[in-house]
């Protein structure tokens, strides 16, 4: 009521505000001109772009701005979700990409930090930060899908090594990775959820193939960002088993809370930019006077604002020192944004009319065609929309259980 002052919806601590100033200053000095405006880093960067990104990644790693949610003692900065959010906001403000070490940073590192021995931590964490180890994931298997407990890839102890045979699927980032983190069954007698080990497997050893073969899977947009992975007598040192033999299930469940919190205040930004690009396209087509089109666009804008408000509320709670969001917030958020994106891109196709029927040569898709196709996968990977609803119903609402899979698993 009081006044028209624009104050912040997030109750930042003085330390958080100081951190924001620090990052902003650092970016003012260090943000690379050659990446200015590259906000969305393509999954498979062009040969021209890649060296620029690699240089920027090294700069960030040297400045201690990689793996920032990890504890300081392991080379991170111990940032809270709110601070990660601030970092994301400042990078966005500076117009340069905040690079991460991908799944090595978000999934493998936390698993190591939580479950590994001190020796393993000292040996395996620094190469993630430096970029020396680039991880891809081997959880899913053909036939297992969302039902992780059914996995069949075998690991047999042979002296100080584990010998692995089997097949994985939906290995993302395989084309640049040199390490595979995977789940293998090391005790075939144990019940489904037991007898599984979490292993870090080198893709090559001594410059030679380590029995890991990738067969790219082309997706419906024509790109091959995933692969089937065939493991034939692939060998990992037993020292690379995290959390102990047959203890892989709980290791696989590890996630680092702050990562999600960290994107909460910036997730809507990409959606908003995309929204305004669509508005511009629609304006060019002369359709903005159509009340129905206006209503559809306002619907999309409204959903984005709901996503934004949800992120702000979550971050405000985190900043106030509470966990925020409840048990199933990850799932409700995912349901919300994945279904929004699906509907938004379907709408975009309709709004773009006959032009949207035609692609470039070699199935080169424009932004909307690409998104229209790719968004169909968002209700599948990381637990299908149906699995997410089960999680919400069971964890947040306490409805009777059904069997359910691990997080981060593609069906």
């Amino acid at each position, binding site marked *: *009521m*009081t006044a*028209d*002052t*624009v*104050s*912040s*919806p*997030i*109750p*930042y601590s003085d330390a958080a505000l100081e951190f924001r100033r620090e990052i902003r200053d650092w970016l003012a000095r260090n943000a690379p001109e050659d990446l200015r405006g590259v906000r969305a880093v393509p999954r498979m960067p062009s040969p021209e772009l890649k060296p620029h990104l690699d240089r920027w990644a090294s700069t960030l790693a040297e400045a201690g701005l990689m793996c920032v949610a990890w504890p300081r003692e392991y080379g991170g900065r111990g940032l809270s979700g709110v601070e990660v959010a601030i970092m994301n906001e400042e990078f966005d403000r500076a117009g340069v990409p905040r690079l991460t070490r991908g799944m090595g940073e978000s999934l493998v590192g936390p698993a190591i930090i939580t479950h590994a021995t001190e020796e393993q931590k000292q040996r395996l964490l620094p190469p993630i930060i430096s970029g020396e180890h680039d991880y891809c994931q081997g959880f899913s298997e053909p036939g297992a899908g969302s039902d992780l407990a059914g996995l069949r890839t075998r690991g047999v102890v042979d002296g100080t090594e584990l010998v692995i045979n089997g097949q994985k699927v939906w290995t993302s980032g395989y084309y640049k990775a040199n390490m595979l983190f995977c789940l293998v069954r090391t005790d075939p007698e144990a019940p489904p959820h037991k007898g599984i080990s979490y292993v870090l497997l080198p893709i090559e050893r001594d410059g030679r193939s380590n029995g890991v073969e990738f067969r790219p899977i082309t997706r419906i947009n024509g790109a091959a960002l995933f692969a089937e992975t065939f493991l034939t007598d692939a060998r990992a040192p037993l020292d690379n088993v995290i959390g102990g033999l047959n203890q892989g299930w709980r290791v696989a469940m590890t996630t680092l809370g702050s990562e999600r919190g960290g994107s909460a205040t910036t997730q809507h930004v990409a959606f908003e930019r995309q929204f305004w690009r669509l*508005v511009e396209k629609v*304006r060019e087509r002369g359709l*903005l006077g159509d*009340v129905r089109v*206006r*209503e559809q*666009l*306002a*619907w999309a*804008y*409204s959903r984005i*604002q*709901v*996503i*934004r*408000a*949800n992120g*702000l*509320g979550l971050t*405000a*709670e985190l*900043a*106030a020192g*509470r966990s925020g969001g409840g048990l*199933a*917030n990850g799932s*409700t958020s995912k*349901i*919300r944004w994945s279904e929004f994106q699906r509907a938004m891109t379907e709408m975009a196709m309709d709004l773009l009319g006959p032009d949207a029927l035609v692609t470039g040569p070699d199935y080169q898709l424009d932004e909307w065609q690409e998104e229209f196709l790719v968004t169909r996968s968002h209700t599948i990977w990381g637990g299908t929309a*149906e699995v*997410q*609803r*089960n999680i*919400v*119903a*069971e964890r*947040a*609402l*306490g*409805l*009777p259980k*059904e069997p359910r899979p691990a997080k981060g698993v593609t069906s």
Partner: protein
Amino acid sequence: MSLEITAEQEALRETSRRFLSEATPLSRVREVMATDTVFDTELWTRMATELGALGLAVPEELGGAGLGYPEVSYLAEEAGRALAPGALLATAGLAVPALMAGNERARARLLPRIVDGAAVGAVAWLDPGADWSSTSPPTRAARDGHGWTLTGDTSPVLDGAVADVLLVLAEHPQGPTVFSVEPDQAGVTRTPLPGLDQTRGLARVELDGAAAEPVSAPGAGRAMVTTALDHANVVLASEMVGGAQACLDMSVEYAKEREQFGRPIGAFQAVKHKCAEVLVEVEGARSMTRYAAWCASHNTAELPTASAIAKATAAEAYFRAAAENVQIHGGIGFTWEHDAHLYFKRAKTSQMLFGDTGAYRRHVADLIGI
């Protein structure tokens, strides 16, 4: 003040919930429903005095608590959950923000009476039979020696039959202007209108040369109604979030205990997933509403857009939650005796109030300049 819920706000919410569940359980709501005006005077007085419900967003110098709309929102959420009868939306949602935007005389004269519970507020701006989007004032103002009189009919007026402070939009030589009218005078006829949602009071108000005092600046009446609506939508969205949550709670509770085919119906994915989807919608609506409430106190530039989005979003969530609640309850959910229909009717009529979801979408499109 930021978006997080403070300990004081949490306490206010707890107190409100306890107070309302004791003072106006659904059995009491049903008694009040059966009256013409759908108004519980004792409850109103207690809400004003014990909860300070009407002064939360009113500055201390005018008798209020000097807090803000987040507090109003938390209270309204509880009122919506309880289906508390009374003029909270009309008074705290419409009349208070209208008066706060009004001239000093009106503010000083009328707000303290509202805050202490002595007066119910209402705002009237609609021609009978017109659409919510209509912009023609329902009454016209005429000079009358010392002051002004208003003539014309307006309907539906939220809680118009019980209002003590009646703010009416009138045609004025300098453009639409809001006046206050004392309802207890010759020239004012008020007729309660039976509502499809029996928990909310509606009325038709007929003015025939009723004495009136300007509240807005001449010609600024429509802007005042718009400001009032921007705030009212925060209150309405909050009520709807509370109602939706009540429906979801009922659904989940029933789904856990009701057995069919040898298991609780909540074990069937059809029911589980319905509940999960409702939760996603309610959680989103709550976040949006909380943000809009924050805007009402801290970022009024964004308020019109945020409150319009909150209104439409909460309405969709509420209708869905209330409709699925009827469906999940099966036959029993379709009986008058069960409470599901009270929420169902409140949900749909709240969605229609001030304009349906499509109308609010168009409003958002206008506001964001596309």
